[in-house]
């Protein structure tokens, strides 16, 4: 019993206690993106939302249930995530504690992360990411796999078919006892993705009227196929030890569609990308009376090939670009948590990571090999001053490639203002550094070894309120943030035609995030909702000599000032309906915020609706669901020159036991 309580205390912050997942969809699980009571600004995406987006990739889940901005080049295409007006490379992604972003690109393509493989997804906004990682100036996203020790045999099997020849398959089996557990998951997603669209970026002249007409085209060369396996193994040894191991393999192959201004040779400009990624992590945890210690070791090995092929008369299909890159990350972490007394908790951890990368372009004969050794030291002191006031002090010290980075400090306070109304206030301040990526430093041609780390200073002020009234429960949160990023690295073209990075941007970000979630039971009908609004000002405060006077004080390209999303679900006697909405205000594509209709990214509103029925058969359930994306069949663009699909459907059948 004692152990259980201690166990709870230690891991509560990572949400280990939430073992109620895999309950049926109709169960009155509270739907809210819960945030733990601490000075940090964190969002945990509720299981009900994760289940709702099961067949999607992570970018869809994030754009429709959290305040982050998702920039997507289209269905199945590159999709990046940024927090609070920062860039995609300021977002770190951790899988079971291990950073899985590429040491070359410093970012992650979220379209390649299947929600099938996630049990928990949580976000650390701004400086709160210090608790997980360093250098995530925007924030960090943690993907966790969790064990259910009560499980004996359970699983789910899903099959789905959708528009544009889309085929989804997923199977999961969980087996075990209170001592040992195994979870195996397999998935495959294929789509020909050849939707029709009216191409308004090109025109043909009607020979009889002389008028311009937009042709209807197919989104050719946009097919994608992903498949993968995730195997987890958990073992309890004695009362004090726990072992876990996870292995994730994924293969992605996709064609990258051409811009919709392309009218060249049909057999030219063919872009293909394949990726194979292996990720594995082993953990041993020892729980003591007042402490816990953990040893974790992991590896990521990833291989990416990208080719651009053109048809050459007499020679056939020739590669104009044949790029192969691979990286290996070795991750080692030792952590120690200690409850000094009822008021003070201490946490320490040390990481020894090694990255090795190789990049090669076989046509132009460019490439580089590079490696990086990281020593990362972290300490956290949490103190409860009284029943209302708590403080967090965190420090990170990084030594990267024999260079000591400046100390990364974090200071935070949380105050329970009203116990009755569950009203709490929290505030934090931090200074963070992000090291240039290996591509930034060594990419050929263009890499710049003289780059400095990016420096960010940020502060948060938040209010959190929980309300329970009869059958209504409601969580509302309001967070103000302000940050300044100096020496922001930007890649710019050069006279020679290649791009080169430099520390030339200085950005001021400020704004607020509003989160509202809850549920309400009215007779037999259950309503769940989750909603976010973010107001983000992200302005260029760079050197006018470089940026030109007209860019100073302007919103950064592709950062919307207003963003909003809503997920609403109602269930009644096994029937359920979900509605998802996501909107962004207009976005600029230039540093000067030119209002040109040609480059205008007008306000974006996207709606989806899901209907389903759940049938309970003894101990198992059968769920049939029809998802309708782009409900109003909008013709739209979300970046320049990329076609987007109209209304499309996915029918899924899932069997759970």
């Amino acid at each position: 019993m004692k152990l259980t309580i201690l166990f709870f205390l230690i891991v509560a912050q990572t949400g280990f206690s939430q073992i109620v997942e895999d309950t049926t969809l109709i169960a009155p699980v509270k739907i809210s993106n819960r945030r733990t009571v601490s000075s940090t600004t964190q969002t945990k995406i509720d299981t009900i939302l994760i289940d709702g987006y099961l067949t999607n990739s992570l970018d869809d889940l994030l754009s429709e249930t959290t305040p982050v901005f998702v920039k997507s080049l289209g269905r199945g295409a590159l999709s990046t995530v940024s927090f609070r007006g920062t860039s995609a490379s300021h977002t770190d992604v951790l899988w079971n504690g291990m950073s899985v972003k590429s040491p070359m690109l410093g970012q992650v393509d979220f379209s390649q992360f299947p929600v099938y493989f996630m049990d928990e997804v949580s976000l650390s906004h701004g400086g709160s990411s210090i608790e997980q990682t360093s250098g995530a100036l925007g924030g960090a996203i943690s993907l966790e796999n969790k064990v259910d020790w009560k499980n004996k045999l359970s699983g789910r099997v899903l099959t789905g078919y959708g528009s544009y020849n889309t085929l989804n398959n997923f199977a999961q089996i969980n087996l075990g006892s209170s001592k040992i557990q195994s979870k195996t998951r397999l998935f495959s997603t294929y789509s020909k993705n050849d939707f029709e669209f009216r191409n308004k970026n090109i025109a043909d002249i009607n020979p009889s009227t002389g008028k311009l007409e937009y042709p209807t085209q197919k989104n050719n060369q946009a097919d994608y196929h992903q498949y993968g396996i995730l195997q987890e193994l958990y073992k309890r040894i004695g009362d004090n030890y726990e072992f876990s191991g996870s292995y994730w393999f994924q293969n992605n192959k996709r064609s990258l569609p051409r811009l919709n201004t392309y009218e060249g040779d049909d057999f030219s400009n063919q872009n293909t990308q394949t990726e194979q990624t292996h990720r594995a992590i082993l953990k041993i945890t020892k729980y003591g009376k007042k402490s816990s210690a953990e040893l974790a070791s992991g590896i990521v090995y990833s291989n990416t090939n990208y080719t651009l092929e053109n048809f050459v008369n007499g020679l056939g299909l020739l590669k104009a670009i044949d790029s192969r890159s691979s990286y290996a990350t070795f991750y080692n972490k030792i952590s120690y948590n200690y409850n000094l007394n009822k008021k003070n908790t201490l946490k320490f951890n040390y990481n020894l990571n090694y990255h090795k990368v190789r990049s090669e372009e076989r046509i132009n004969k460019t490439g580089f090999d590079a490696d990086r050794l990281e020593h990362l030291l972290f300490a956290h002191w949490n103190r409860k001053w009284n029943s209302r006031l708590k403080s967090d002090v965190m420090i990170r010290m990084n030594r990267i490639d024999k260079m000591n980075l400046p100390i990364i400090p974090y200071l935070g306070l949380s105050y329970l203002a009203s116990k009755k109304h569950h009203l709490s206030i929290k505030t934090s301040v931090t200074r963070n550094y992000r090291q240039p990526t290996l591509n930034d430093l060594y990419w050929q041609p263009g890499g710049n070894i003289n780059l400095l780390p990016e420096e960010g200073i940020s502060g948060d002020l938040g209010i959190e309120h929980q309300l329970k009234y009869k059958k209504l429960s409601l969580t509302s949160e309001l967070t103000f943030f302000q940050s300044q990023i100096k020496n922001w690295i930007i890649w710019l073209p050069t006279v020679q035609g290649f791009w080169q990075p430099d520390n030339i941007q200085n950005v001021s970000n400020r704004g607020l995030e509003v989160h509202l979630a809850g549920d309400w039971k009215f007779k037999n009908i259950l309503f769940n909702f989750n909603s976010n609004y973010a107001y983000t000002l992200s302005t260029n405060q760079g050197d006018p000599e470089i940026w030109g006077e007209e860019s100073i004080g302007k919103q950064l390209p592709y950062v919307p000032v207003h963003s909003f999303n809503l997920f609403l679900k109602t269930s009644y006697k096994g029937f359920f309906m979900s509605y998802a909405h996501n909107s962004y205000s207009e976005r600029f594509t230039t540093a000067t915020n030119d209002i040109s209709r040609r480059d205008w990214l007008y306000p974006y509103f996207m709606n989806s609706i899901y209907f389903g029925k759940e049938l309970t058969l003894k101990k198992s359930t059968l769920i049939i669901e029809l998802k309708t994306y782009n409900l109003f069949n909008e013709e739209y663009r979300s970046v320049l020159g990329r076609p987007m699909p109209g209304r499309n459907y996915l029918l899924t059948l899932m069997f759970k036991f």
Partner: protein
Amino acid sequence: MKYFDYIKTIIQGFLLTLLITSCIDDDAVRNFNLLEVNKTNDGIFILNEGNFNYSNASLSYYDPETKEVLNDVFFNVNGLPLGDVAQSMNVQDSLAYIVINNSGKVYIINTNNFKFIGKITGLTSPRYIHFINDHKAYISDLYARSITVVDPVSNVIIDRINVSNKNPNFNQHSTEQMLAYKNLVFTNCWSLDNKILVIDSQQDKLIDSIEVSIQPNSMVFDSNNKLWVLSDGGFSGNSYGHSHATLSRIDPDTRIIEQTFIFDNLDASPSNLRVHNGKLFFIYSGSGGANIPNSGIFQMDINSTELPQTPVLASTGKNFYGLDINPLNGDFFITDAGNYTERGIAYRYDKEFKLIHSFKVGITPNKSVFK
């Protein structure tokens, strides 16, 4: 309870907002009165190549008499974007041909009202268009390893001139600018190459090649009928090599290099070789954006025995990207690409390099083309 009502109102509010705002107005982008103009005087087009993969190329028009600037005229007149990477433009009587590299096409517009009147499509990676006669034009190409022969009346591809050297190591030959001499066409192979190809424009055949320094990027014929070739020498880390930039003078009949001037600074990457009234002009700047001393516009007499050492116009604080000379009066049109991601500037200087006018154009302005 009040609280409860409040929440209900919020939820109702949400739903109501959605119903009102749930339509994206995609046609708003094109829903405007198209620009109607008729510019009959000798104006200047400024071509803005835009950023690779952004489809944000544009066309500006400048009236040298009134100093009126019309930006984004292709879009404003036709309601269509120009495309991805506008590489070059060629005026033939009342028509202008705009080569859009990464869109694999050439747009044809009327030079007075800028109306889109045709296109040549199905190209691979087109760079320049050159007219042999009324029924034949050549289009050079970065990746096709051939020069595409088109019929400018029907705008269809009629032939291809194979220029592949079957080198398995590099994509050769890529072709760029084209200049006519007698029945020949000279074209430079810039990307990872060091050749000037000679094509017989009656036979549509590759007949000879001249080896020059690494990466010949521009060339001109002077009044003595000598071919001048400017090679940038590649850049540091370039797999094809990195050498000093050179300026070579070639006899087009014998195809012998008569003289080669070598630039002292290895970091120098000169470009945009032009000729006017017996003088050569080019942009002298650093490779890969590197700052080098004395960068700017250089001038050199065609009979000079050495390279100039100082600019006639320093580029201090500017990023000179395109240089063209008005054949009518010798005015210089120099474009400044700034940091390449925002709108650039065009500078108009008289022949004494006195600034007459400067104005904002589109993103990455690369060429000024005279009607």
